[in-house]
């Protein structure tokens, strides 16, 4: 019950948030909550979409300052569209992640946003990349982010398995988001998820009252 670190240095609207992305056998699930708050006291939006599509099979999730994150993803979308026209092929997931990383690293003094990029491409299949606040880029089988993620590190470490089925992974992601939203007061609302595979993209939205419940609820 210690005080958790609140991002009080972020000015303006912040996506105090929970985001995650996890690979399963054949694809990736990426998801987030939907709450935007000001100063951790006022919920300025209950239904904000933090899962942004930057290309057909590449999505990213934003955490930190909402304005910074929106500006960076807008720039990244443009870069990727241009890049894929030049290369005459859909972009690789790592290209999308690198574009975000370049923007974050070059502007690290002004920006305060972190990203999770997840998607599917022909070269390496399902991938998840995380771009941290200062601009580090790392690939991981599963990653979580945002203020609510602190509370689910233990759950994710214990319950994630690298080769789950699509349904198992979806349930795992819903459970993790639900647990984080239950403990973090700046995460909440609905759970927005996208399931990305070679075949296509499926959006799953689960409203607050339909989320999994646990022993004390």
């Amino acid at each position, binding site marked *: *019950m*210690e005080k*958790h670190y609140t991002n009080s240095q972020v000015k303006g609207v912040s996506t105090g948030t929970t985001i995650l992305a996890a690979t399963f056998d054949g694809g990736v699930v990426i998801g987030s909550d939907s709450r935007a708050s000001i100063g951790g006291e006022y919920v300025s939006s209950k239904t904000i979409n933090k899962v942004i599509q930057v290309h057909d099979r590449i999505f990213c999730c934003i955490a930190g300052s909402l304005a910074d994150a929106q500006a960076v993803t807008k720039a990244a979308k443009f870069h990727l569209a241009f890049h894929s026209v030049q290369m005459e092929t859909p972009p690789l997931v790592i290209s999308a992640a690198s574009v975000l990383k370049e923007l974050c690293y070059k502007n690290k003094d002004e920006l305060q946003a972190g990203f999770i990029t997840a998607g599917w491409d022909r070269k390496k299949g399902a991938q998840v990349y995380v771009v941290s606040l200062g601009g580090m880029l790392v690939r991981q*089988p599963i990653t979580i982010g945002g203020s609510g993620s*602190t*509370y*689910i*590190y*233990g*759950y*994710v*470490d*214990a*319950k*994630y*398995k*690298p080769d789950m089925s699509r349904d198992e992974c979806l349930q795992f992601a819903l*459970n*993790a988001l639900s*647990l*984080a939203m*239950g*403990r973090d007061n700046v995460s909440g609302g609905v759970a927005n998820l996208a399931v990305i595979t070679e075949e296509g993209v499926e959006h799953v939205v689960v409203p607050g009252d339909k989320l999994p419940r*646990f*022993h*004390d609820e």
Partner: protein
Amino acid sequence: MLEEDTGPGWLSEEVKTGTTIIAIEYNGGVVLGSDSRVSAGEAVMNRVMNKLSPLHDKIYCALSGSAADAQTIAEIVNYQLDVHSLEIGEDPQVRSAATLVRNISYKYKEELSAHLIVAGWDRRDGGQVFATLNGLLTRQPFAIGGSGSSYVYGFVDAEYRRGMSKEECQQFVVNTLSLAMNRDGSSGGVAYMVTIDEQKAEEKVILGSDLPTFFDQ
């Protein structure tokens, strides 16, 4: 250079039991668990400290926060309980021990920064767990505390069920400690566990190499 040599950080940093502590009740007793790391800033001062401290034969407390404050509270309450149990002529109740801890924590709440979880067995109510954070007193089916507890809120919320057996509780405690110790820089070392029932209080040490491992280890 014109800088003053202030010496190593650990000479001036406060000594804290960073820590992860947990206590859980089952039908017939309680199980308490803790890690063993004591840190002063970035240095580990003691890597094998037992943070489960006896207050009486069948009442233990788990220490977290400032090492000096927590130890002092435990020693004072140990003394007060001895006197109290002589006065009433029998073993004290767990609630009495928790109240004594709470009284000190509340009265000196501005000066002290320690959180003790009190758990034990008595004839009247069997196994009980009390949290005394910041001077409140509340009985709970289980309680977690310390810096490492933030990371396992999701895990304990998901995994706790009512009516677990003694062995299931012990496994639950060991899993929780292991997950928290893996993520929290201020928790680590070995795991100490105490199981208290009507007959006795049994202490156990689980070495680092015997702790459960998870998918990425």
